[in-house]
């Protein structure tokens, strides 16, 4: 399963205190994201990654806590229509 983020111009993002408000142009929907969702979107990019590769990419940039919950965080993004799973 490859997880992909939307193309760069599909999302408008505005930081609002600890959150990031995101407008998804294709769906017209608005979401409020909090860590680690923005970081996941950033790491996935357009080409996408498998769950394992994503975990590795994040581990390279950050000190991860409760990394086993990554699949759950990905599912939230998929359910919101912000990440495609194929």
């Amino acid at each position, binding site marked *: 399963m490859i997880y992909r983020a939307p193309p760069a111009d599909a999302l408008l993002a505005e930081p609002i205190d600890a959150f990031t408000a995101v407008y998804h142009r294709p769906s017209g929907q608005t*979401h409020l994201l909090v860590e680690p969702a923005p970081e996941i979107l950033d790491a996935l990019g357009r080409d996408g990654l498998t769950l394992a590769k994503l975990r590795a990419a994040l581990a390279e940039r950050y000190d991860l806590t409760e990394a086993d919950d990554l699949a759950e965080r990905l599912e939230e993004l998929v359910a919101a229509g912000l990440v495609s799973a194929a």
Partner: protein
Amino acid sequence: MSDADRPDDQPNGPATTTRRRALMIGAGAGAAVLSIRPALAQTAGSVLACEIPVPDPGRAGSFIAPDGSTVPAGTQGAFAPPGRAFKGEEVKRALAGSQLPGTSMESNRAYVNYIRRLQRGQGGFTCFASLQMPRA
């Protein structure tokens, strides 16, 4: 969206030390994504309690042809108005395949076709539109 890499540059040194910031993957205070739901459903109060008149008051007295268009009263093959507005709940079920209350199979089809053809500005349109929304 956030890059916390902060390389320490050592003069004359080949290596850069990166201090990475912590990233919490666990759920913490809840899910990491909150999706905003459209406010129209809230404006309507309980959407399923809204009503769709057949036909709308501007065409009161018209009959409903089998294809859902409104025709003069008494037109051959057309159906008299049902005499009551239908509730959003009833229309939602009819759209999914069941029958509007108090109708025959043919008159039900005519009324449902009428509802499907509603345009913005006609009575009941907003109620019909909100039935289509995923979180009505």
